């Protein structure tokens, strides 16, 4: 030890220890604040709007399932349809609300309005012909488009068998402007098989000057007994099929949009089947019926059959947290593609 004089002994040591302690503490503070800054910077948005939006998506899905169930089970009259849907939405709102309260949120869903439609479906697993065996027929005529969408939604075919193996004899779904001649203003989808497990879909879109042809093929997972073709959703057995999606330019020219029928106007389009004996199975679709118009369902009897349905339902969705109030009208149309 250095020879320190008299009273100062040990004091330098004390001061040094104190200084060291202060340095260590301040270093701890600096390191901690750096970690905290990094933590703040890498957080997502903090107001919690992602929770409101994900709950909105959940509500949309669940209301959609309620509409689909009502269309299947409560279709004897429009009043019964609306009552069943409203009851479903009330149950959903009550139960979802209570569960959201567990995480400090208020969620409320209330019914606002609906737009009418018709559900056309076959459920007996026979060929997609009319009950009388007609293979080429008009499924529905006079369908209007709704703003931003086709006016046909949830068009799904569950085919237990597809016999056609080439383009010429393929089952064809044709969507054409009412009153157009030849193939003008039409969008057609041809469905045939190119292998035991592979389905080929070719779509053709005609306007007055040109034809746009697109193809896609999907091989289903082995062990499945049906081909699930979602014409409006653009998938085959859950896998995306380009030809049913949007055009390479990004524009949606498919289904109603491919017929140049503009939404909101008085123009309508027809949906027809050709070579319907080539496909065996079930299908279902919901089409929009503009109020005070009627749809042409003259070829539809018992198989396939048509029932009154809801095309879409608008609900008021409210989501409250301490930081956020989110309230919006939500239009729910399950199986309707974005246009």
């Amino acid at each position, binding site marked *: 030890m250095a020879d320190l004089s008299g009273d100062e002994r040990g004091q330098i040591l004390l001061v040094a220890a104190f200084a060291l302690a202060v340095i260590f503490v301040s270093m*701890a503070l600096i390191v901690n604040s750096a970690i905290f800054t990094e933590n703040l910077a890498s957080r997502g948005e903090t107001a919690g709007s992602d929770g409101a939006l994900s709950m909105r998506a959940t509500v949309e899905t669940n209301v959609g*399932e309620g509409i689909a*169930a009502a269309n299947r089970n409560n279709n004897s009259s429009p009043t019964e349809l609306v009552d069943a849907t409203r009851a479903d939405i009330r149950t959903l709102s009550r139960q979802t609300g209570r569960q959201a309260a567990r*995480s400090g949120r208020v969620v409320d869903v209330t019914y606002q309005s609906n737009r009418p439609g018709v559900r056309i479906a076959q459920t007996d697993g026979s060929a997609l012909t009319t009950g009388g065996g007609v293979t080429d027929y008009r499924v529905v005529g006079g369908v209007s488009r709704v703003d931003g969408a086709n006016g046909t939604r949830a068009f799904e075919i569950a085919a237990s068998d597809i016999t056609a193996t080439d383009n010429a004899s393929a089952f064809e779904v044709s969507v054409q402007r009412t009153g157009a001649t030849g193939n003008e203003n039409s969008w057609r989808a041809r469905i045939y098989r190119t292998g035991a497990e592979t389905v080929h879909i070719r779509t053709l879109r005609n306007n007055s000057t040109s034809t746009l042809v697109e193809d896609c093929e999907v091989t289903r997972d082995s062990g499945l007994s049906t081909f699930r073709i979602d014409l409006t959703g653009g998938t085959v057995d859950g896998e995306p099929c380009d030809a049913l999606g949007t055009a390479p330019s990004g524009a949606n020219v498919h289904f109603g949009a491919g017929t140049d029928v503009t939404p909101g106007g008085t123009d309508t389009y027809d949906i027809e089947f050709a070579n319907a004996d080539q496909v065996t199975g079930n299908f279902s679709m919901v089409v929009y019926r503009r109020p005070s118009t009627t749809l042409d369902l003259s070829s539809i009897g018992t198989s396939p059959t048509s029932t009154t349905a809801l095309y879409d339902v608008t609900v008021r969705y409210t989501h409250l947290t301490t930081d956020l109030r989110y309230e919006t009208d939500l239009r729910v149309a399950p199986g309707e593609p974005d246009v």
Partner: protein
Amino acid sequence: MRAQAHTLEATVAGLLMLSSLIFALQMTAVTPLSASTSSQHIENQQQATGEGVLAAAADQGVLKPAVLYWNNSSARHHDVGVQRYYTSGPPDNRFGEMLDRAFNDNGIAYNVYFRFQNDNGEAITRRYVYSGVPTDNAVTATHTVMLNDDDPLYGADGTPTTDRLGDENVTYPMPDTGANSYNTVRVEVVAWRI
């Protein structure tokens, strides 16, 4: 006397040095498991993973089949054993595979609960996958699924059976609380580091 005072001073100084060192060393005592702002960051990531797994499962349509993965004759989930919930790893369905891939390889334990209500609106919680009591740093991710009377129960191989929720003889443990709708289930994934 003087020597004793020096010794005492030196001891006190040594004690001060030592305690300041121990105090300063507290800052380095942040292990991966201790609660701090940096483990908050990890928790955020775990929660995002949980939300992602649930959202992906719902989007691929495998979340509801996982909820309805039920053996109607034995009145329990498929292959659960005596516990009536899965304790050794996730169930053998697509949702279980997704949980496995997201968590199991990364040293993260998780529980999956179903929360629903009975006719009186009382909240009921059922365990689906249970790995033990979560730590203080566990995070929760949720997704709400609505069950309908038309929904089928799913077989052990993941394919729908002919038993539907609305049928008379169905042993599914949630009560039917609506007309067309059956019940609303909140699927809750609780994850924590081990």
